[in-house]
């Protein structure tokens, strides 16, 4: 069964460093998302991406964040200068698009720890 994959599973970084989180969405999907989940809290939307551009972003997704689809398979989230409060689980999701609602498939997540 197709699945969303994410690497690394755990990333530890020093405050102020840049990190890149990587995702491979399901191959025929057209919409891609990043969400984050601070430990013990709800899953929060960061950004959505369609047709090689950001389609929607939340107030969390400030200038420190950027997304890219560098090739036909990878979808990346970059945090330019990490802060302690960026420590969270980051989930990538994708869905196939189309005119009706369809399931967003989530990856297993990357746990980011900022020291």
């Amino acid at each position, binding site marked *: 069964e197709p699945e*969303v994959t994410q690497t690394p599973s755990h990333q530890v970084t020093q405050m102020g460093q840049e990190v890149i989180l990587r995702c491979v969405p399901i191959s025929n999907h*057209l*919409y891609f*998302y990043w*969400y984050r989940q601070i430990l013990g*809290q*709800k*899953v*929060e*939307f960061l950004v*959505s991406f*369609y047709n090689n551009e950001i*389609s*929607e972003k*939340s107030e969390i997704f400030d200038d420190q964040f950027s997304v890219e689809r560098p090739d036909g398979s990878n979808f990346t989230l970059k945090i330019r200068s990490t802060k302690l409060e960026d420590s969270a689980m980051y*989930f990538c*999701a994708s*869905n196939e*698009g*189309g*005119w*009706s*609602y*369809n*399931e*967003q*498939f*989530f*990856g*297993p*997540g990357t746990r980011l720890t900022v020291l």
Partner: protein
Amino acid sequence: QQQVKQSPQSLIVQKGGISIINCAYENTAFDYFPWYQQFPGKGPALLIAIRPDVSEKKEGRFTISFNKSAKQFSLHIMDSQPGDSATYFCAAEASGNTPLVFGKGTRLSVIA
């Protein structure tokens, strides 16, 4: 307006019992209501979803009840099993291919 409120925060149910988790929303633009199940160390996985044109949807032991006028929906897990122990999130979406708005989650423990 964009929030989805979920309760209870945690729930302990005896094996074979019924687990009930409730959610409420304010934004009448929400038009799709999925429930996600999350096991420790894993990403959320879709369990069951409903559109507001029906008041109930059942898939196996899992049922969503939907009350459009009250802007509330709930998940019922019949014959709860220890393997159902997980965190459950309700969510809402305003139109296709848009971000999900999640509730805060309910940690369910089913004990033998």
